């Protein structure tokens, strides 16, 4: 029996012609808040389904809290909490009825488990008689979290709990995960929102079935290679097109108000690059550019480690199906 909360070795899974997971290996430590960060079609849902024993991998193996995810599925299912990506509670039952139902499935009661769910349930209690279908997006997710916790699992799997939820509710949800972490619960969570990475102890970047890196958020950011500068101008779109034509440009991407620019001269000092870029923009007719060295984000790293599907005509690889089967 391993001391890791999760140990995944070379997991692969194929759906038709799509390789949904391609030799994925990682470990999660007990008590960790571990995040899988990546877009739709990355393989997050397939991976989670394998780890909670709902799907059998084509190759590789996984142990979760010491139990084999294929052989020991009966024991494992008693001890994992799983919140699926799609809202999967009973819409016509009230908040309280949903919770009572999920408790009874696991042979317990809401009263007996109250301490475990209290931090979340106190936020839901004002609505306990409301039908689940009539809850706001954020409240639905809190109820689903409550239902996944009601049997006091040893490990929690949350598949995209914040997708489609507004920014305020997303923050509140992550605050709750922080509370659960303080209580020692191991939690594995997936998200397409890169800015949520910093809420995790460690993250794995996942895209098209492959892991692009596993580290702490700070470690991921520190791994970003080339010097990065941020550019602000009044006419962003024209400046973006102009920067792409600059002879030393390696990559130029819009990041909100700022454009992130990396230079092909990787050993040059960021300040020198900033000065060169500024001089180029002024020579190109932009009157007020502001160019400054920047600290990269997790999203910069993700972009640097992946390649976009691009456009069909410019791309030699065959189009990978989107989220239809593999998401």
């Amino acid at each position, binding site marked *: 029996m391993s001391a890791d909360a999760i140990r995944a070795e070379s997991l692969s899974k194929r759906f038709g012609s799509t390789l949904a997971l391609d030799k994925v290996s990682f470990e999660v430590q007990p008590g960790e808040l571990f995040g899988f960060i990546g877009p739709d079609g990355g393989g997050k849902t397939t991976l989670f389904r394998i780890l909670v024993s709902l799907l059998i991998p084509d190759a590789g193996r996984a142990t979760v809290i010491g139990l084999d995810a294929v052989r020991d599925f009966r024991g494992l299912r008693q001890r994992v909490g799983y919140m699926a990506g799609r809202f999967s509670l009973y819409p016509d039952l009230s908040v309280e009825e949903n919770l009572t139902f999920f408790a009874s499935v696991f042979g317990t009661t809401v009263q007996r488990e109250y301490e475990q769910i209290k931090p979340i349930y106190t*936020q839901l209690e004002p*609505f306990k008689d409301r039908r689940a279908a009539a809850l706001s997006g954020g409240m639905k997710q809190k109820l689903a979290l409550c239902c996944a916790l009601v049997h006091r699992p040893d490990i929690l799997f949350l598949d995209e709990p914040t997708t489609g939820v507004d920014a305020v509710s997303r923050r509140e949800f992550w605050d709750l995960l922080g509370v659960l972490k303080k209580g020692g619960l191991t939690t594995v969570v997936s998200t397409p929102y890169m800015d949520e990475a910093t809420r995790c102890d460690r993250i794995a970047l996942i895209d098209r079935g492959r892991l692009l890196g596993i580290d702490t958020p700070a470690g991921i950011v520190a791994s970003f290679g080339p010097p990065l500068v941020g550019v602000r101008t009044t006419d962003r779109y024209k400046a973006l097109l102009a920067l792409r034509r600059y002879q030393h440009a390696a990559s130029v991407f819009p990041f909100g108000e700022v454009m992130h620019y990396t230079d092909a001269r990787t050993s040059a000092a960021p300040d020198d690059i900033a000065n060169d870029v500024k001089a180029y923009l002024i020579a190109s007719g932009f009157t007020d550019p502001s160019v400054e060295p920047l600290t990269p984000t997790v999203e910069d790293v993700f972009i640097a480690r992946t390649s976009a599907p691009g456009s069909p005509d410019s791309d030699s690889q065959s189009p990978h199906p989107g989220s239809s089967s593999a998401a």
Partner: protein
Amino acid sequence: MTEPAILVRDLTRRFDGFTAVDHVSFEVKPGEVFGFLGANGAGKTTAIRMLIGLLQPSSGSARVAGYDVARETEQVKRRIGYMSQRFSLYEDLTPRENIRLYGGIYGLTRAQIRQRTAEMLDRLGFSSVADTAVRSLPLGWRQKLAFSVALVHQPRIVFLDEPTSGVDPITRRQFWELIYDAASRGTTVLVTTHYVDEAEYCDRVSIMVAGRIAAMGTPAALKHDYGVDSIDDLFVRLARPEIAASASRPSSREDSPP
């Protein structure tokens, strides 16, 4: 002075005593990229449904592309494009067939449809998949196609509802470049998004809270005026009070489970 692309004055909609949109006023200039933000339930969807002529206002007025949304609904619908939350294409049809379908719905001639199809397939780099079922294309490609299809009748204003949900970061940026490109050619863009960092791609944003516009301006000016680092921080500050009051008890949030 040119007429605003969107001109909204005291727009209000009540449902059974509940005011979903409460005296909202704003203007969007031609060629502007305007971010329309708000928490779930803040009234965004109700407001947009009135602007595209699907819902009658209870009071107030809105003019879109120069036409009154309550009285000149058909004129408005011809001059706007709409791309919905998730997907607005027919997945069993090919890109070429989707373009032809939407072109026909908007009353383009065969010659126009042929010409726009060639232009769009070329601009998107989609020639090699023009006759492949949309279902088998990656999500990011489908969304770029959906955006172009929403522009097939060259509308003056396009409404985008959560256009980049779940898309990878590079494709998201390519999508924003399509938006900038359309705006640079004069199309006005009104966009809703849950990626609050995306608010910072917009020329101006409004933040709706409980049916009213709580803040509006350029992202830089809003951050400066409210003394926050990001629009995300401002959003949470404006939107949290009502949610905190109705749903959470701050004292219990710090409790640890056993």
